[in-house]
């Protein structure tokens, strides 16, 4: 289990993931040696599973982000697996989530502009297998994105 020191270190890491170890240790008020040991332990035990670069797709010209929510036809027991397998093959799909609720699967899809989105939607999304229903939510703005945990 985590103790107070771990929590302090993780809080600081979440505030600034690219800070140096000594900066994080300083802000968490522990020695750099202790901080290094604790982070190593968090990595080893799998609590901190990975650190991934975030890509700003807008900076690459992808202006459109749409959340597509699917209800699947569940009469075929393989419908989830085959849907997901085909969805993974669509490059513009940046996130795949499965749910318990009214929605079965959600895909985050990005596109350069509306015409590009229209093409992806018609050629790559509507052709995915076992779709019973689709709803689209178009992203207008992101107000909070850091995914910080309340530790």
């Amino acid at each position: 289990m985590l103790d107070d020191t771990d929590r302090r270190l993780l809080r600081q890491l979440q505030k600034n993931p690219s800070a140096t170890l000594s900066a994080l240790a300083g802000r968490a008020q522990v020695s750099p040696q202790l901080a290094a040991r604790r982070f190593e332990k968090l990595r080893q035990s799998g609590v901190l599973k990975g650190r991934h670069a975030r890509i700003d797709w807008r900076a690459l010209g992808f202006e459109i982000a749409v959340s597509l929510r699917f209800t699947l036809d569940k009469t075929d027991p393989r419908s989830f697996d085959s849907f997901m397998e085909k969805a993974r093959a669509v490059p513009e799909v940046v996130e795949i989530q499965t749910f318990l609720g009214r929605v079965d699967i959600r895909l985050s899809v990005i596109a350069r502009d509306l015409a590009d989105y229209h093409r992806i939607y018609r050629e790559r999304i509507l052709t995915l297998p076992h779709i019973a229903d689709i709803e689209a939510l178009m992203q207008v703005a992101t107000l909070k994105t850091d995914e910080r945990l309340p530790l």
Partner: protein
Amino acid sequence: MTLDEADRAILRALQQDATLSSAALGQAVGLSQPVAWRRVQRLEAAGVLAGQRLEFDLNALGFGVTVFLGVKLAAKGRLALGDFERAITAIPEVQTVEHVLGLYDYRLRVVARDIADFERVLRRRIMTLPGVGNVEANVLLSEERRPGPI
């Protein structure tokens, strides 16, 4: 900004592991250390590389459920969009807030210890906000991030 093959390889490698040194990154994508370093600097300056996402074992940290909420504002609530946005982004359990167009006005990602804890957050913190109308909750079962069109 337009990317060439080396840029794409760098982005793919850093999506996997953002902590790679420029020497290790260079080795992974077949570039010398100084060239890899300059490429990364350029991608950061152009805003393409926009920080790091930390991936945690949520269960190990005591967060047993993640719920996505679609929130529709009541007609009166629309006058107080700013108030709603300030209040919702300040709730620690609310990890992301997106303003969307469609069936809902906002899409929220919420973490909680368990379903009972989620219910507490929903009833005491979210439903009490000014202007909240219809709310739909979907409990996250699995999630995967894809590399995207690079």
